[in-house]
């Protein structure tokens, strides 16, 4: 990547010797007053300067740091809550600064928006300038090519005019854009006759050209190549802008949703049936595609021996789905890294866990609960899972259970631990409550949390149950039986219309980057003049100062090729002059 602004020591743009923040031809307002328009102009110029771009880049990097260190609302709301409880004084201050949602915060948006404004403010004029330079010719060849960073000289037998012609052909065959002197100028050194302005010719006296004084033009060829570099540069920066637009597109028209699905059950992609739904700004629930997914089976296998015992080996979920209500049922296998694509949305397998099954009978002998209740494992190892069972239909008093599910239970010094993630020895431990769950009125409750303030604990210690065992509650309150377990998967459903544009812009940015690094803008000049040895040909060249490639290699081979072309032309001149032979071309190097 190169500077979007022109470098100061760039020999290519000597007409615009800018310093950061100031442009020529605009020395300031006449009269000394500085109105609003001038302030705006000053601000714009500052914004589009390289220095400010650098500062904004630093700010962007710095601003991202708290977004990675503190828990963020979007990805870890529970962590944010935890931070509030553990840092009661600091957390509200950080919240005020927007540090729990850094990447959505206005100050972060301000940084990247300013950066992109600066980018656009640089890129657009550069595009105009590129278009302009594509039309203008390369500059005339300097008089003394030996002062250039790369130069060479040799003698040849052809006349200067022919030498220039041959050189033009060789350079043009390499894709250079050429400039030749106008044929009439050769005889008329009119410009130099003006005594006032150009008192002496620019540059050093003719040290190596061997031409006589006063011959201003001579025979020369000026060649330039490598405009693609600027194209690549501009493409890169514009593509970054495209990525930003794509991200915005996704934020407006995309959505994300979560659903926990127990084995044997189905869900439909409708707002009522999703656990979480995060629509983009312009998305409503009506935009959700109407597909349905059933989880037929889920299998997780784990490494059973060796140093990595307990590490997951593979997950796979067998599902069936319909793309629309009443449509044909298809089956598929869902895995990590292998989402289901349906109706424009994608369904991902994110995680899994256990849902123990219970059967609860209340004091009146009625079966008031009979099914699976998902438990959540969190970060504890080996899928030790926690959950609650709220039996709101129990009479006369509602019942509630808080429990721990241990897939492979082993008694370690009196505490129950899970030593393997597979359910080889499933045990459930329950604490029973009776009273008012608080579910008959008030705000909605999470299915995974129980509020025991209106309840009394029935059992003093947690009771352990194996599959098939029952717990009889005291005072005839009822019984609860641990009947078995199911597995559940957590699915993420996403739709992002900005995804493909972002990818295309990303690849375009990469392409532009490579182009701007690999292609160099370079100029090659050839001057042919008469000398005691016949004709002396001088070749000179230069590339932009911060080039990353090896212009020297290219120049060396070009010089060699020119020389051999001239030698070939000299040989061919043994042939009658009516049929001049074309010099040998070396295609490719």
């Amino acid at each position, binding site marked *: 990547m190169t500077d979007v602004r022109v470098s100061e020591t760039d020999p290519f743009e000597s*007409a615009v010797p800018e310093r950061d923040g100031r442009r020529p*031809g*605009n020395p300031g307002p006449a009269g000394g007053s500085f109105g609003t328009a001038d302030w705006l102009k000053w601000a714009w110029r500052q914004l589009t300067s390289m220095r400010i771009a650098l500062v904004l880049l630093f700010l962007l990097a710095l601003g991202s740091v708290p977004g990675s260190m503190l828990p963020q609302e979007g990805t870890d709301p529970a962590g944010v809550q935890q931070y509030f409880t553990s840092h009661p004084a600091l957390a509200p201050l950080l919240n005020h600064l927007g540090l729990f949602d850094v990447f959505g915060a206005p100050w972060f948006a301000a940084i990247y928006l300013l950066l992109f404004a600066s980018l656009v403010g640089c890129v*657009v*004029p550069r595009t*105009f300038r590129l278009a302009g330079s594509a039309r203008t010719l390369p500059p005339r060849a300097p008089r003394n090519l030996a002062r250039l960073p790369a130069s060479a000289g040799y003698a040849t037998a052809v006349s200067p005019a022919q030498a220039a012609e041959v050189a033009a052909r060789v350079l043009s065959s390499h894709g250079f854009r050429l400039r030749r002197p106008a044929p009439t100028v050769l005889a008329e050194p009119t410009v130099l006759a003006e005594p006032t302005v150009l008192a002496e010719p620019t540059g050093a006296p003719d040290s190596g050209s061997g031409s006589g004084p006063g011959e201003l033009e001579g025979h020369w060829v000026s060649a330039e190549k490598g405009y693609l570099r600027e194209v690549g540069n501009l493409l890169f920066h514009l593509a970054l802008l495209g990525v930003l637009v794509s991200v915005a597109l996704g934020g*407006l028209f995309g959505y994300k949703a979560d659903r926990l699905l127990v084995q044997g*059950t*189905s*869900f*439909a*992609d*409708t*707002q*009522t*049936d999703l656990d979480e739904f995060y629509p983009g*700004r*312009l998305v*409503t*629930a*009506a935009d*959700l595609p*109407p597909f*349905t997914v*059933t989880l037929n089976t889920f299998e997780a296998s784990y490494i059973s021996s060796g140093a990595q015992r307990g590490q997951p080996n593979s997950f796979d979920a067998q599902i069936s789905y319909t793309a629309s*209500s*009443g449509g044909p049922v298809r089956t598929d296998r869902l895995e990590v890294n292998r989402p289901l694509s349906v109706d424009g949305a994608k369904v991902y397998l994110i995680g899994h866990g256990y849902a123990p099954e219970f*059967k*609860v009978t*209340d004091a009146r002998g*009625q*079966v*008031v*609960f*009979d*099914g699976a209740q998902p438990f959540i494992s969190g970060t504890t190892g080996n899928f030790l899972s926690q959950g609650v069972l*709220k*039996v*709101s*239909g*129990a*009479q006369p008093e509602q019942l509630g259970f808080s429990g721990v599910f241990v897939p492979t239970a082993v008694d370690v010094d009196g505490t129950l631990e899970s030593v393997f993630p597979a359910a080889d020895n499933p045990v459930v431990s329950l604490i029973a409550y009776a009273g008012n769950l608080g*579910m*008959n*009125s*008030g*705000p*909605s*409750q999470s*299915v995974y949390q129980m509020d025991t303030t209106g309840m009394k604990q029935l059992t003093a210690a947690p009771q352990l149950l194996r599959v098939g065992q029952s717990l009889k509650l005291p005072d005839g309150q009822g019984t609860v039986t641990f009947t078995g377990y199911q597995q559940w998967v957590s699915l993420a459903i996403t739709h992002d219309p900005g995804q493909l544009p972002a990818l295309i812009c990303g690849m375009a940015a990469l392409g532009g980057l490579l182009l701007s690094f690999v292609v160099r803008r370079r100029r090659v000049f050839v001057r042919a003049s008469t000398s005691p040895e016949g004709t002396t040909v001088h070749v000179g060249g230069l590339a932009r100062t911060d080039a990353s490639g090896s212009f020297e290699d290219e120049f060396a081979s070009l010089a060699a090729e020119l020389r051999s072309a001239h030698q070939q032309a000299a040989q061919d001149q043994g042939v009658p002059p009516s049929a001049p032979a074309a010099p040998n071309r070396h295609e490719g190097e």
Partner: protein
Amino acid sequence: MTRAPVTRARRRAVVLVAAVSAGVLLIVVLVAGWAGSGKSDVTEVDGSTSAVLYAAGHRPVAPGFSGTTLAGSRLSFSSYRGRVVVLNFWGSWCVPCRAEASTLAAVAALYRSSGVAFLGVDVRDTTASALAFTRTFGITYPSVTDPSSAITLDFTSVVPIAGTPTTLVIDRTGHIAGAVFGSTTYPELTTILAKVSGKAADEAVSR
């Protein structure tokens, strides 16, 4: 290069104009998107945006469905043709559903003799809990289970059902005439039923 400052100024003007018009366009689009759409064919009930009536001629057709009731028998919606139906989406795990349950039971009793039918759709639930719910709140009207959410899906395509509870009032021609998104109150439900069935609450009882 004497032309350069003039053309540069002109270019800058062009860019500025383009940027301003793009900005204006963007703002217009965003405002239009955010503002949402105000439909004239929907009237609010009691000033609440969650309870609405659909004007005649703008009522979506209620999709047909069939399912198994909590009692275990088959039920088809087509059997309710010609009657006003109150369709309530609920679940025993859902706190606002529990809050409105007594209201629904009461209004159901009120309008039973007028021929208004109440029907429940039990969502994301298990049979034992659902039956316990009906016992607790004295719900005597039937409910079909919706294990794959197919019924919910079909209805969501015609009315914006956002969650449970949702109550829909379907007129005699099988069109959805009114809806309450969220838990319903006695005044809201009776107002809608009065409009749709043509019988006010007190009339319904006295008939």
